[in-house]
């Protein structure tokens, strides 16, 4: 057999390996460049009490989750029961970011489906979302005591993600 003639086969084999690995990846998931970096600073009016504001630095010293949601977001309803259950355990504070929504609609949504958040802030023009690199709703950020983002959940929070990734990390960070 001619050695050189095996080269195309060799290249093809390498290609197949890459394609096979590619099948296990999701091309739509864009990892956050913020992991390990400080969360962007923000100050925003609260949903329930708009005259009062809330900022990221109010949470320094605590491990917490920032969860983006909206009344128009269908996938948010998927993760909502899981968040409600999680909020009942009172493990860590969960702050909601009502992204590109009308205040009245947001309040109606929470009244209808339940409010798992310690409080929610509003981001009507989406600027806070952009600062956090949000490109789809829902997205959630796990932030540590020093205000560093440790984990980003792209899409709804699932039971597996909560159990296998988020909770272990929370335990680590709270030590």
């Amino acid at each position, binding site marked *: 057999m001619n050695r050189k003639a095996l080269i195309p086969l060799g290249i093809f084999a390498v290609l197949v390996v890459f394609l096979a690995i590619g099948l296990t990846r999701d091309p739509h998931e*864009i*990892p*956050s*460049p*913020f992991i390990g970096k400080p969360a962007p600073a923000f100050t925003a009016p609260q949903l329930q009490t708009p005259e009062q504001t809330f900022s990221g630095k109010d949470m320094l010293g605590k491990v917490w989750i920032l969860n983006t949601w909206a009344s128009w977001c269908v996938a948010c309803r998927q993760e909502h029961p899981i968040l409600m259950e999680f909020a009942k355990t009172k493990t860590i504070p969960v702050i909601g970011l009502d992204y*590109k929504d009308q205040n009245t609609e947001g309040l109606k949504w929470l009244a209808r489906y339940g409010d798992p958040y310690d409080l929610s802030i509003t981001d009507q*023009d*989406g*600027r806070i979302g*952009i*600062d*956090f*690199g949000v*490109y*789809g709703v829902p997205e959630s950020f796990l932030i540590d005591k020093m205000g560093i983002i440790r984990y980003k959940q792209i899409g709804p929070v699932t039971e597996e993600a909560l159990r296998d990734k988020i909770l272990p990390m929370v335990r680590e960070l709270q030590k």
Partner: protein
Amino acid sequence: MKYWLALILALQCAFSSFAGEAIPLAEDPVVEQRMIAISEELRCLVCQNESLAGSRADLAMDLRRELRTLVKANKSDAEIMEYMVSRYGDFVRYRPPVKPLTWMLWFGPFLLLIGALFFLVRMVRRQQTGSAAPVLDADQRKKAQSLLKDTELPS
């Protein structure tokens, strides 16, 4: 007096029937041009394979709005790109950056081309020295001629 009134009325009618020249959607065409040029180098994250410049998605419109603000604040192209990359990662670049990770991407095709041409030259030169044209005897020549007569050989 009546004459002046009539004139003013006539002029008013003339002006109100003058149809407007359409206003560009952008407030400031210079800012807009720069913003479009930068957003053509950025990817729309929610769409499939579109640039930020052309996309009609909500997030794209928001991001273009932010870029417009940055352009108006006289930020440089590099600073604006940094703004986007620090929030969304390298993925948001439509044109992949030239760094060690992408050397293979940018230089690969040209290296491949040079390599291929090199082999080509070597192969063409080598087959010169290899075979000489075969010499036919009378019988073979006759057979070749009869075969050639039957086959057309266009370009």
